[in-house]
């Protein structure tokens, strides 16, 4: 009997090795291990044997059954793996057939430049102040030590609006009114930068816009010196442009600062590029804002945001910044 079963097991092993689908496997499973299989029938006959024989035969039967079960498991694993492989092959995709269904928009180049500047200044301990774009003569000029007769007024090329008395309300010609509004409303120490749109009567061309963006810094604290001004500008320039870029200050004139300076940054070829204006806040400006110039001192600086964007990306026409052509916007 055992010999016959050995033959059956060998037979099963051979047929299981060749099975090609799970249905056939189930049939073979029933044939070799089912109720009517030779193995099951043989097990039922064990009861008629002598105890010693029965024990030996039982052991042999179990061993044969184990082998067939292992063969079936192996066949099932093989078939499952084949089926998965076939399914995966059928799922093959060309991933370059993309249709850009999720679109991301772009932040405007000016916003990106402004955010970057803000982040550098925030890292240096500044907060961001903002103010209105339509201003009164007090904030745009008078509080900034530019009286009505002052020749500097003409140099601002101011755009006025039809509100109040003539030339009393205007589109701010610089971000400096935010200095005044901040000093009027905040007790020193003050460490702010004020980014925002400013206006001049410039006809739009490749290098000019009548509305453009500037950023202005103001520090008011005890014991602030012109050395601090030069050092702060230097630190900002190193953080924003990189450590190799040098700065220099040249004497200049603004009614709202004294001493006043232009500040330049070095180009790779060693020449200098004028970036903006700066200076120690004029005592009259502090007084106009109710701050005692014998206690507090400070500095201010300012420069163009759009110009930095134009320089960084080498735009050949600044009007791109206001055309809102998506073919431009999406480049950044």
């Amino acid at each position: 009997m055992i010999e016959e079963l050995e033959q059956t097991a060998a037979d099963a092993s051979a047929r299981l090795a060749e099975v090609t689908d799970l249905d056939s496997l189930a049939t073979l499973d029933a044939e070799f291990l089912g109720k009517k299989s030779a193995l099951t029938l043989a097990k039922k006959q064990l009861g008629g044997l002598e105890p010693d024989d029965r024990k030996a035969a039982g052991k042999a039967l179990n061993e044969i059954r184990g082998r067939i079960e292992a063969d079936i498991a192996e066949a099932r694993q093989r078939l499952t793996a084949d089926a998965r492989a076939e399914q995966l092959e059928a799922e093959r995709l060309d991933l370059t057939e993309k249709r850009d269904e999720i679109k991301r928009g772009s932040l405007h180049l000016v916003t990106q430049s402004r955010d970057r500047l803000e982040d550098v200044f925030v890292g240096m301990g500044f907060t961001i102040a903002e103010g209105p774009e339509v201003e009164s003569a007090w904030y745009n000029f008078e509080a900034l030590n530019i009286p009505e007769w002052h020749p500097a007024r003409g140099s601002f090329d101011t755009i006025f609006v039809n509100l109040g008395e003539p030339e009393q309300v205007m589109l701010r010609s610089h971000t400096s009114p935010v200095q005044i509004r901040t000093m009027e409303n905040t007790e020193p120490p003050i460490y702010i930068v004020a980014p925002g749109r400013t206006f001049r009567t410039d006809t739009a061309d490749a290098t000019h816009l009548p509305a453009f963006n500037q950023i202005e810094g103001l520090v008011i604290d005890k014991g602030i010196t012109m050395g601090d001004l030069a050092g702060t500008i230097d630190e900002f320039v190193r953080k924003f442009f990189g450590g190799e870029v040098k700065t220099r200050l040249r004497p200049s004139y603004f009614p709202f600062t004294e001493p006043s300076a232009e500040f330049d940054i070095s180009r790779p070829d060693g020449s200098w590029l004028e970036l903006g204006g700066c200076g120690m806040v004029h005592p009259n400006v502090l007084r106009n804002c109710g701050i005692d110039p014998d206690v507090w001192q400070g500095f201010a600086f300012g420069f163009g945001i759009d110009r930095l964007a134009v320089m960084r990306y080498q735009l050949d026409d600044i009007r791109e910044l206001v055309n809102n052509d998506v073919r431009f916007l999406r480049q950044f």
Partner: protein
Amino acid sequence: MKVTLSWLREFAPDIDGDPVALGEILSALGLAVEEIEIIGDVVEGVVLARVLDLRPHPDADKIQLVDVDDGNGTPLQVCCGAFNMAVGDLIPFATIGTVMPNGMEIAQRELRGQRSNGMCCSGAEIGFGEDAEGILVLNDRVIEGAELGMALGDALGIENDVLWDLEVNANRPDAMSVAGVARDLSAALGVPFSFPVHETNRSDESVTDLLDVEIVDPTLCGRFVATVLRNVTVSQSPAWMQNRLIQLGMRPINSVVDISNYVMLELGQPNHTFDLATVPNGRLQVRRAAEGETLVTLDDAERTLSSVDGVITDETDTVVSLAGVMGGASTEISESTTDVLLEMAWWDPPSISRTVKRLNLPSEASTRFRRGCDWGDNIDRAMARFIQLAEEQGMVAVTGQVDVPGDVPDRTPVRVRPAKVNGLLGTALSADDMAGHLTSIGFGAEIVDGDLDVTIPTWRWDTATETDIAEEVARMFGYANIVRTVPKGEAAGGLTEYQQARRLVREVLAGAGCDETLPMPFLAPGDLQNAGLPEDGVTLTNPLHAEESVLRTSLLPGQLKAIAYNQSHREPGTRLFEIDHVYRPAAEGELLPDEREYLAVALAGEEAPAAVAVLDLLERALALPNVRLQSDRAPGLHPTRTAEVVIAGRPRGYVGEVDPTVLENYGVEGRVAWIELDLGELLNGPLGSRKYTPVSKFPSSDIDLAFEVPDDVAASAVELSLRKGGGALLQTVELFDVYRGDGVAEGSRSLAYRLRFQATDRTLTDAEVAEARQSCIDQAAKKANAALRG
């Protein structure tokens, strides 16, 4: 202000060095060099030539034929487009082979069949001033002994020189003169500076017998000095003077005007000449104009004067000159003038500024007066220099000058605390150091008890305070020598919550596929009306163009223009957004407009629900509390597809679509889904807070319910009723289907919701779910007129 090395050396002979290095020093003094020009580099190949004959070109009107002699003795024919020269004139002539400064090489050419063997040159073409009109006629400018064919520089006696074009700041009246620049530069270089003394030979006649001047308003005029020149002949001034005037950017006019300009450029003192014959009895008065008085100025324009203007009147009290700004036509010197009244004065800078601005009459003279001229010795020096130069031209000055004083700025010494100056600059200079820097540029400085008593010179009108003086110390010490530090304050930087939220809004919208736009805030008249909005935009007083003359009150026009622009460039379906200011009419009693920061989203080619979906993103990102959409009408927006956005009970703007008529007005194709919110109000108003609710560990039950709801009931009302019915057990409500058609009554639609019920502390029983379900159905029927569909 332009200066040349040779002229600077008349005051400081030891100024020397590389032009670029000297330029750097000038820039470091605050006299920013805009351009350096090397003079005497006359174009090689340009020679002195004489016009021998002029005749029309047989086949061209705009050019003529010129025969010139360039020294070879044989006439050369040239075709020339200028007609300003006469036979016999001396001109600069570019010979064949000359490479002009613009890169053009002169070759033999034929113009309409006529040979051209070179080129007659304008001043601009060869770098002699900016005059590009006509050929530069040199008749009186060549030196004695000049010959035809001589290199032009030799023929004109031009020596090598350097010219710096300086940007002079408004607080530096002194640097509006060659002498003033020389003073600064010599101090920086540590070389001597002095004014040359010019001897004059006056006639025996005394000025007091000829002139009588009275200052009626001393606040207008600080000093009025005048004398008389006789034997005046108005002719051409000498070549050297003309050359210098041209180099510094002025046109030679005649001997008298040229001397006037020369003295102004050299010493910074503007001056004025009257034809003495037109001033009865030599009597002048200085006063403010009466309102409405008139004067015909030198440019033959009649000016109506105001009481701020300073004027000079004659003995009949008739205005003859606009003080410091422009002379009058009636007293102008002419060819027939034989005697001149020469005037030099100091005018109150704000007064001059107001007149210049009011009449829009800027000039070289008024530019200097506005900044504040020197009321001290410089006037006497300028008088002497004028007379000396006039004598060289054969004029004779009478003896003495009238010198009438008015009010001048106080020059009491200013007490300067060295500690304060060092504290401002971040320097550690001694009082001696500071005194040294100040005296090097003509300030007086005396050390008194460790402080400085500083006398500010009369040529620095704008300088008056301790801080002004600190700036001078810094300038002469050198900004570059100030040690760089950073503030020691411990301020913490950061963005405000508003600024952070605004950045988040931008990121969310970019993530939703919207490109950020930033149009300029100007609109054309009619833009607002075309957008269906009230025409109440603030208008500009001095717009550059009519199309940019109104300030926007809404972001709608700008966005529609951007969409139309992109559509015309084959980008039909843009998603755009903008965060920017709008300027609404000023509130009652306010001077400034009601300026606000708005957010707009424009989805071209999309319908209102797309805008609502974007709004939902913002709601989630910002945790906006209790957002409700109330169907509404709004100017410029689609009348049946617009809802007011109400956040925590406060209206914040609109969502929906743009009115088709408005789209048509702006040439926009297709629909535009639209959001416009008052971002400032929204972000400054109550914002939701995020609260933690433990995630339930118990199973949830989903129930689907479909209702038939009349069209006039908002889906949001149905949802509200379901939430009320479901109470705390109702976790989520999702509208998953909207259906109109068969099986649903006309004027109604089917809304299908999936409700998820769940408790945090137990598994819900079937009975509990059934009860909650029924409560939802009941509330929907009661509050939203919604009938459960079978």
